[in-house]
């Protein structure tokens, strides 16, 4: 019974973690699907999302801000007053952060990657590393080098209890939001006009261009949606762990990338599946093997999957063209 509860608790942690990984992994996979490049700066966009979110949230709720700008006081009273207010406040936080980080993604694409479309494959990778370093150190220098506490307006309420394991409201909200966003994105990509254009661009950029598809717009869209989802994950990450720091993006970014590869990079559903598999595996490993080695487990899974199934779990089998 004890064991079953432990497994259950770790499973629930794993699903929460997996939701975050899945959201970040989508950004990697979208970009990879279209441009065949690893956007190493994505983990920093995830981090930026958390920081922008914290900024907006502070603006909407902090009393010291209200003292400086009395105009905001009534709005703040509404946002902190009731559950409905908190809901609206969070919506604004998420939407603004998604928008800002999405635009950051588009700008990065425009200036760091677009000039390199015809360059050797390594060039955009290195350029992405440069962007990543820049963003990390910009936050370190101009915001803070310390851990900053991140408020959790949702609170630590318990949604329901399975056996003896309590599941918090926050965990439920993270999971539900992730699923809703994933399904929405999947629908968007498979059914909307823009989604079709993106798929066409990813299949054959040149041919898509000849068919009258605006390739640059499709690529821009991928660079907007991916980081926007990353921003959601960033804010949730802040609420879930209670603090954010300038280099918080690195490890989740690496894991999410692992998740994307695990599921078959370039494949949206694969990225989601990979995220959940990785999150659960990691939680189980930290519960039953050792917290220190949980990252080893994640990377070991990655290596094993790639060796035995190089296309990933849902990826197509690899055919080499001569």
């Amino acid at each position: 019974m004890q064991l079953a509860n432990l497994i259950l608790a770790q499973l629930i942690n794993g699903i929460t973690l997996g939701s975050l990984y899945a959201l970040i992994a989508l950004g990697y996979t979208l970009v990879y699907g279209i441009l065949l490049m690893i956007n190493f700066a994505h983990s920093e966009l995830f981090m930026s999302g958390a920081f922008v979110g914290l900024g907006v949230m502070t603006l909407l709720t902090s009393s010291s801000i209200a003292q400086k700008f009395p105009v905001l006081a009534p709005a703040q009273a509404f946002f902190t007053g009731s559950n409905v207010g908190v809901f609206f406040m969070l919506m604004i936080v998420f939407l603004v952060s998604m928008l800002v980080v999405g635009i950051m993604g588009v700008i990065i694409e425009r200036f760091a990657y677009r000039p390199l479309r015809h360059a050797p494959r390594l060039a955009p990778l290195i350029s992405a590393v440069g962007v990543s370093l820049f963003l990390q150190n910009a936050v370190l220098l101009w915001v803070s080098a310390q851990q900053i506490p991140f408020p959790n307006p949702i609170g630590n309420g318990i949604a329901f209890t399975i056996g003896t394991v309590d599941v918090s409201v926050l965990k439920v909200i993270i999971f539900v939001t992730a699923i809703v966003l994933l399904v929405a994105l999947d629908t968007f990509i498979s059914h909307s006009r823009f989604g079709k254009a993106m798929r066409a661009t990813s299949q054959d950029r040149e041919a898509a261009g000849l068919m009258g598809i605006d390739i640059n717009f499709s690529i821009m869209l991928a660079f907007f949606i991916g980081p926007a989802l990353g921003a959601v994950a960033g804010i949730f990450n802040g609420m879930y762990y209670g603090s954010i720091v300038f280099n918080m993006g690195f490890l989740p970014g690496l894991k999410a990338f692992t998740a994307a590869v695990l599921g078959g990079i370039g494949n949206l559903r694969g990225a989601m599946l990979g995220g959940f598999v990785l999150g659960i595996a990691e939680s189980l490993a930290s519960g039953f093997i050792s917290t220190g080695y949980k990252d080893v487990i994640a990377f070991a899974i990655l290596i094993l999957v790639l060796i035995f199934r190089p296309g990933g779990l849902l990826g197509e089998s690899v055919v080499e063209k001569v």
Partner: protein
Amino acid sequence: MAESKAKTNTKAGTGRVTPIKIALYTLLALALIITPLIFEGYGWLFVPHIMALIGLYVMLALGLNIVVGFAGLLDLGYVAFYAIGAYAGVIVGAWAFKGAPALGPYIYFLMIPVAAAAAALTGLALGTPVLRLRGDYLAIVTLGFGEIVRIVITNNAFGITNGAAGLPAAGQFIPKPFGLDWLINNVYFNIPALGKNFIFTIDGNVYWYYMIVLLCLLTIFVVRRLDQSRLGRSWAAMREDEVAASSVGVSITAAKLWAFSLGALWGGIAGLTFANFQQFVSPESFTFMESVFIVCTIVIGGMGSIPGAIVGAIIIQGIPAFIQGMAAAGKIPGVDPSTATVIANYRFLVFGLFVVIMMAWRPQGLIPSKRRAAELKPDTAEMGDEESETLYDAQHDSGQF
């Protein structure tokens, strides 16, 4: 594609020996020997230290160049070999030192083959399972491997790595001539003509710098020979077209395994040297970012090119460290030494921007090798597309949304 390569069918590095060349190399050698002494003479004691670190980066870059530049296999976990060389040398060295303290002065030299072998074997062990992987997948697996090595060391694996706290290197070793300790800090050249109190001092850092320069020269010699060897030609054939290469008799398996283990070998030696130079080793030095910096070194310098690796190491390791060192020593007018850490952080900000601009401006690197330049910058855009698809190809049809 074929034409563009035929045009540049030059044999690098086998030019005739001319008096001008001899003079140039002599000047270069003199500059290499004297530069650190001059800086020491003017009291810039941190410069020889930085120059030694640049030397280590040159070794690392040249080693990784075998894998990435010659064989065309993208390795994002190269720092793992650096770590394994360092730890193997330090752990085995401490054990040998305990058994035979008389070995003390020679332990560093005795450990070079140990570190090299440990790293090369690990390279082989990593290379074997990933033979089938190419392009980005290979990059990710090597990245994962690098992280695994670092995490295992941090977790004090088998109780021998001492976790995050790190290990001291056995014997406070400094590579001095004839094994004479007296030569450290006791050798002065007083040259009043260069200003009053101008004294060349030779301290431990300078000896390490000379040692590392010698190792770099050895690396350059071996890497050049490798590039022109039968194996080097099979690497070139393999990175340009694996299928075509294997159909004319190049053993892809052997070529890849040789690339991994020979590349790892230099990483191992550099790691051991780093550990002894710092007299300390800890997992902090072996992060993923370090791997990325080594890759940046060869990409910015120019892939497959030896002068490129050196220039890249100076840009990536040297300049930022130099600026930070100047700030810390109060050598920048108007900058307080206490703000040196802020400067240190700005250097990464600037470095990030620099990398982005550099890639947009010169994606093939500053001094690419002729052959690589032809591969990487073909005559037309379509050729470029074809090339970029085969060079680091992810080889699958994407579009699987």
